[in-house]
């Protein structure tokens, strides 16, 4: 394994993060807050470690990386970024406990939006900005962001982008990786700015609209009010955020196709159709279900739409305390958590496309039972999905179920009800944010023990990175899983050829 290259990439990532940490410094200065100094110290610390790591491997280190390095880099990068992202929370004293601060930062970067804070309104502007800004950066990907800045030659980079971009088979839009990353971030930026403008037009203060747009764009969900979006009474703001959440849950490749006027590709996209269908169906069912709790149909529709959009895209903003809704509606919402957004969007969850693939695999399987000699291929967007993609989706689902079960088991040690533990797991693993009951729309995660918070942090990372990078990092650290090669023992002779 090319450890030097891993260190160097981590160094670059931290340097990038230290640049990002300068933004909250500016915000703090703008509002005349003392936190500016703390952010500056964090940025300097992060930059120093980053510079050191980039310097260690030397100038002429071999830059070739393979699949394993790619996955390990992604996993380590996210852990490092979260660790350093937590520094300002601790330094400013807004979140003094290490595990609390780590949870909050991971929740930010993984665009979960789950919080351990009981009162967010006391936070300074700088801290609030940084908290939401992590959503924006984490949404499209920290490493993808780095790739637009730092040139990475060699094919290995494709593993990095693939490990970080969600979905069963992410592809390139243009031949060069760097250009693809730039196009994605460009679209991301444009959509975000559009939302900021629309929110400002609706009478939301500029700072608020920025922060909420970051939360929407990354499908994160950190707000600046204890009652989230419900703080704003304007229906216009609710609808704007609702629509933008749905937009950010769509595969960004489709926006690129729109830009190129390839309307047919967008229209023929299976995933988009199913996504829209699910949203419409869920909104209709919940609206009917909650109608008798509301005075007017329009408010019921608005709250149902907002909550469906918020949960399926795994954002986690709240306009209504859905814990008071009937069981049927709550169950629909929990189901939506697992479905998640489209592949290639900023949303979390299992992704609509994996469900489509699995549904088609199941149909093929059933057909084979009736016609044992029948041959069928699984298609996606009119093209045959390769065995690798189909198998990958199957393996993903299996590992997903195993981790979900294990997490609920670990959480149950704290003694809270099954509903709380299950919804906390579903919410964190799918990067949604709020769950039910204690961790529900108006609750938070502060009551959990440090151990549970750590477990949930790891689960959030696993969910955001689609499990495999974290799993591969784990298997790399434990030599037994290395395909029987006893990697650890042979390290000395291997290192001479590989490093």
């Amino acid at each position, binding site marked *: 394994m090319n450890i030097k290259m891993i260190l160097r990439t981590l160094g670059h990532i931290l340097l990038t993060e230290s640049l990002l940490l300068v933004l909250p410094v500016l915000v703090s200065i703008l509002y005349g807050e003392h936190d500016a100094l703390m952010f500056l110290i964090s940025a300097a610390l992060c930059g120093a470690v980053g510079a050191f790591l980039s310097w260690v491997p030397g100038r002429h280190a071999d830059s070739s990386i*393979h*699949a394993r390095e790619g996955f390990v880099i992604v996993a380590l990068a996210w852990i490092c970024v979260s660790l350093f992202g937590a520094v300002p929370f601790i330094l400013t004293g807004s979140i003094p406990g290490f595990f609390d601060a780590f949870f909050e930062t991971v929740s930010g970067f993984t665009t979960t939006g789950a919080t351990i804070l009981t009162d967010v309104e006391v936070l300074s502007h700088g801290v609030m900005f940084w908290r939401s800004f992590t959503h924006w950066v984490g949404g499209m990907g920290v490493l993808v962001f780095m790739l637009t800045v730092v040139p990475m*030659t*060699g*094919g*290995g*980079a*494709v*593993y990095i982008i693939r490990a970080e971009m969600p979905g069963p088979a992410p*592809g*390139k*839009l*243009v*031949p*060069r*990786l760097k*250009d693809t990353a730039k196009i994605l971030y460009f679209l991301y930026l444009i959509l975000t700015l559009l939302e900021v403008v629309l929110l400002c037009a609706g009478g939301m203060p500029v700072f608020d609209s920025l922060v909420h747009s970051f939360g929407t764009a990354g499908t994160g969900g950190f707000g600046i009010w204890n009652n989230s979006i419900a703080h704003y009474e304007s229906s216009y703001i609710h609808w704007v955020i609702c629509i933008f959440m749905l937009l950010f849950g769509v595969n960004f490749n489709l926006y690129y196709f729109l830009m190129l006027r390839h309307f047919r590709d967008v229209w023929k996209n299976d995933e988009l159709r199913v996504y829209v269908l699910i949203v419409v169906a869920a909104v209709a069912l919940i609206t009917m279900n909650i109608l008798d709790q509301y005075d007017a149909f329009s408010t019921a529709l608005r709250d149902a739409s907002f909550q469906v959009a918020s949960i399926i895209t795994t954002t986690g903003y709240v306009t209504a305390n859905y814990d008071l809704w009937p069981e049927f509606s709550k169950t629909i919402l929990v189901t939506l958590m697992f479905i998640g957004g489209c592949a290639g969007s900023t949303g979390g969850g299992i992704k609509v496309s994996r469900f489509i693939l699995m549904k088609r695999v199941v149909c093929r399987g059933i057909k084979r039972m009736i016609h044992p000699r029948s041959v069928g291929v699984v298609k996606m967007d009119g*093209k045959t999905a*390769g065995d*690798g993609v189909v198998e990958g989706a199957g393996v993903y689902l299996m590992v997903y179920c195993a981790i979900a079960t294990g997490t609920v088991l670990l959480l149950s040690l704290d003694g809270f009800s099954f509903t709380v533990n299950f919804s906390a797991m579903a919410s964190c693993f799918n990067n949604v944010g709020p769950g039910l009951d204690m961790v529900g729309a108006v609750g938070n995660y502060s009551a959990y023990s440090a151990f549970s918070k750590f477990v949930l942090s790891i689960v959030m990372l696993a969910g955001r990175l689609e499990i495999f990078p974290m799993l591969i990092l784990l298997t790399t650290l434990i030599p037994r899983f290395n395909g029987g090669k006893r990697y650890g023992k042979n390290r000395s002779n291997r290192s001479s050829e590989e490093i």
Partner: protein
Amino acid sequence: MYVVIAGIGKVGRTLVEQLILDGHEVVAIDPDEGVLEHLSAAYDVMTVCGSGASRNALNEAGISKSSLMISSTGTDEMNILGCMIARRLGARHTVARVRNTEYFNQLEFMRDNLGLSMTINPELIAAREIFGTLRFPAAQKIEYFSRGKVQLVEFKLEHSQLDGIKLSEFYRKYQLKILVGTVLRDDHLTIPNGDFVLHNGDTITVAGSPSEVERFFRAIGALRSGVRSAMLIGGSRISYYLARMLCNSGVELTIVDKDHDRCMQLSEMLPGATVIEGNGADHELLAEEGISRTDAFVSLTGIDEENIILSLYAKTQGVNKVITKVNNTDLRTITGGLGLDSIVSPHDLTANHILRYARSLQNALGSNNVETLYKLSGGRAEAVEFRVKENIPGLTGIPLRDLTIKRGILVASITHNEEVIVPLGDDMIRPGDRVIIISDDRRISDITDILA
């Protein structure tokens, strides 16, 4: 440049690697997902799974904005069809690998009528390379233009009878249809005129048709080590092309092949050669056919290892010039230590050929009538081949002596109706001609650039 490559075999992979190193944007199309997976793991390339002749795959690859489409799948027809479709969808240049001998005689026709910018035949290129090595052991570099009709040979004058001779005198004395294009003396490049005097130690470039160039070498006595007899093992396509070239230049030829039908075919197509049906690895057979007396031994069987062993055997039998075909790159590094100096790899040659074309495109971006471009004398001069498509006022139909051509530019050859003309003052460029221009260091991207 935006380049689309269809068919990721050995050649395709080499092309992807080199083109990315050259800084181009590359899209690869192949029906095998595993191949693409492997490719994108190693290079920063976009991949499209599908057939290189399918419109959907080509569109997905962004063919409309591509400057170059290279089709190197295993099937000629796929390549031709793919290039035709790509051309219609907006690819500016197309290169197809066409290796079937049946198409050999109609390449020019197909290229002009099917919208191909270039066809490439790996076996033919390999045969030419081998032929070149056999004919002019003294030549440092041989380049071909107009599908092999024009040759540009670079070589060094050593103890030559040309020492101290004036070029105009030399042309008069030998009455050869060749032209001295460049002279490199003490690291200084000159495009010579008639008053130029040659000296020993000069590296000169000579342009002309292959037969004329050979006559030239014979006339100046530089051909002394050229082979008179050769033995080819394996009756592959390379053998056939090579045998044709060798027969035409009067080399006594023996071809050994195992397959009866192939032997019959070869003897039918090559009346001048002796075709032996037998195993090339049979040393008695080789001795019987006179391996110890032959000047050159070329092993061209389909198996690299067999070629290497046969060549080693030929070395022990005292054959002067031994040429080995080795396609596998890994094996080639091993053969380095075996004393086999002349190794020929059709895949590499093909890839290099296409790359040269891509580079020439890059050089002449903006004009699309540059056919071929070669760097001469270590990059100090360029030889560019143009195809004059239409009437250009002030250039076509006017005798060269009446044109004012820039200094440092030489019209080295004109191919008119398949006939190679080494231009004199009376000759003129006509529409439909292929013209080779040699220039010192200055970029010629259009034929009209030569006019002062």
